[in-house]
């Protein structure tokens, strides 16, 4: 059996034999692609007259190989995927390289920082506790999904803009590019499961609704924030309007569960659930149900309405103490400033007293003259 490096080499060497003649002069390459929380090996087969090519990730094909699939079958599958995903050769690259064209399509993404150090080293980003905000250019959607380009340090430099400028642009585009949504978990579950349940109940909607209702918690205490596409919807955390509307609906105090980079869950802090239990649940669901490329974080968060910031709930006390210390420092600074002013006033008064006592009082007429001079 081949090891992974030998497997990749064989794929690159042999793939053209499984493709039609028009691919004869194509360039075959395997590149490491940095994804959310993971690295994948992407195969590209690019025609000489094209600047666009689909990337086919080899990692899952190697798993199939290890499971016993023959290398010939795998090569045939890869060739089929490549032919099925032939893309438009006339892609206009200035949609990305020309900042004037790109700027209205810049959108934010929220990912976890913990396992993304390498990815973040290549991309401009801002930090939100242990979450990072990165940016991309949205190029539109079709039946295959939503197409976007991640903004790298190199692209940002070529545009001549700063990370702060990118951030402001991305936030201001959020509403138009990917409108945020805030729904109850019941609503989301109904959207997701009711059609299938009705089918399973032989078309009996009432029965399906009763089954769904039995699955739900006794009270409606969980909400889902995302965007209309339900893709990279954790960026809705950056939508101040949305966060304010959540505060209006369920109060200031709520926990944010980072269910994935595509959506987050919100539960009111007064629902009686312990933070520790919520954290354990997030960790467990991440380990058992969330694909690495969808994972956002293992922590639970809260929202600071004053600063419009998301922060880790387990660090709330620490954060409060830092805030109070900063407030205290400011107060001390102000006090010191006041004391300094008071001291200099005292000094001036003492000087004045000395002047009067020694009879060195200045001639007021002289001063008046000066004043006049100044006014003139």
């Amino acid at each position, binding site marked *: 059996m081949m090891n992974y490096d030998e497997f990749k080499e064989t794929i690159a060497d042999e793939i053209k034999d499984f493709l039609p003649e028009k691919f004869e002069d194509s360039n075959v390459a395997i590149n490491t*692609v940095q994804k959310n929380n993971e690295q*994948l090996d*992407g195969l590209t087969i690019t025609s000489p007259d094209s*600047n*666009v*090519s*689909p*990337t*086919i*990730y080899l*990692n*899952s094909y190697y798993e199939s190989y290890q499971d016993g699939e023959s290398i010939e079958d795998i090569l045939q599958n890869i060739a089929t*995927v490549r032919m099925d*995903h032939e*893309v438009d050769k006339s892609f206009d*690259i200035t949609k*990305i*390289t020309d900042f004037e064209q790109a700027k209205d399509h810049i959108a934010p993404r929220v990912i976890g920082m913990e396992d993304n150090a390498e990815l973040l080293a290549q991309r401009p980003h801002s930090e939100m506790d242990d979450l990072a905000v990165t940016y991309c250019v949205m190029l539109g959607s079709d039946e*295959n*999904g*939503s*197409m*976007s*380009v*991640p903004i*790298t340090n190199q*692209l940002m430099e070529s545009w001549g803009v700063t990370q702060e400028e990118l951030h402001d642009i991305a936030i201001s585009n959020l509403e138009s590019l990917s409108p945020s949504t805030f729904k109850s*978990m019941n609503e989301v*579950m109904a959207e*997701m*499961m009711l059609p299938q349940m009705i089918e399973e109940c032989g078309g009996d909607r009432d029965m399906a609704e009763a089954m769904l209702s039995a*699955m*739900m*918690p*006794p*009270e409606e*205490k*969980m909400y*889902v924030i995302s965007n209309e596409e339900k*893709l*990279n919807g954790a960026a809705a955390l950056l939508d101040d309007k949305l966060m304010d509307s959540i505060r209006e609906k369920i109060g200031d105090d709520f926990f944010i569960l980072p*269910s*994935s980079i*595509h*959506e987050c*869950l919100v*539960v009111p802090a007064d*629902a*009686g*659930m*312990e933070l520790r*239990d*919520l954290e354990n*649940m997030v960790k*467990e*669901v991440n380990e*058992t*149900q*969330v*694909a690495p490329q969808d994972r956002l974080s293992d922590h639970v968060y809260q929202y600071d309405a004053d600063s419009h910031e998301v922060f880790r709930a387990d660090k709330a006390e620490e954060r409060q103490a830092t805030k109070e210390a900063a407030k205290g420092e400011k107060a001390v600074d102000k006090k010191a400033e006041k004391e300094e002013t008071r001291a200099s006033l005292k000094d001036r008064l003492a000087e004045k007293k000395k002047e009067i006592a020694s009879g060195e009082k200045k001639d007021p007429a002289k001063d008046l003259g000066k004043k006049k001079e100044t006014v003139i």
Partner: protein
Amino acid sequence: MHVKSTINTGSMTASRNADREKARLVAYNEGIKKLMEKAMKDAEKAKGGTQ
């Protein structure tokens, strides 16, 4: 199967994976349901204790 379209700037086509979304949301729904039931029981116990 992982497939994406790419140009040399690394563009990608992402599509919603409804199965993965369903798996994690159902798991959270179950988890929250359990925690809420636990919270209700604890509250009842506390109520009983103060009576």
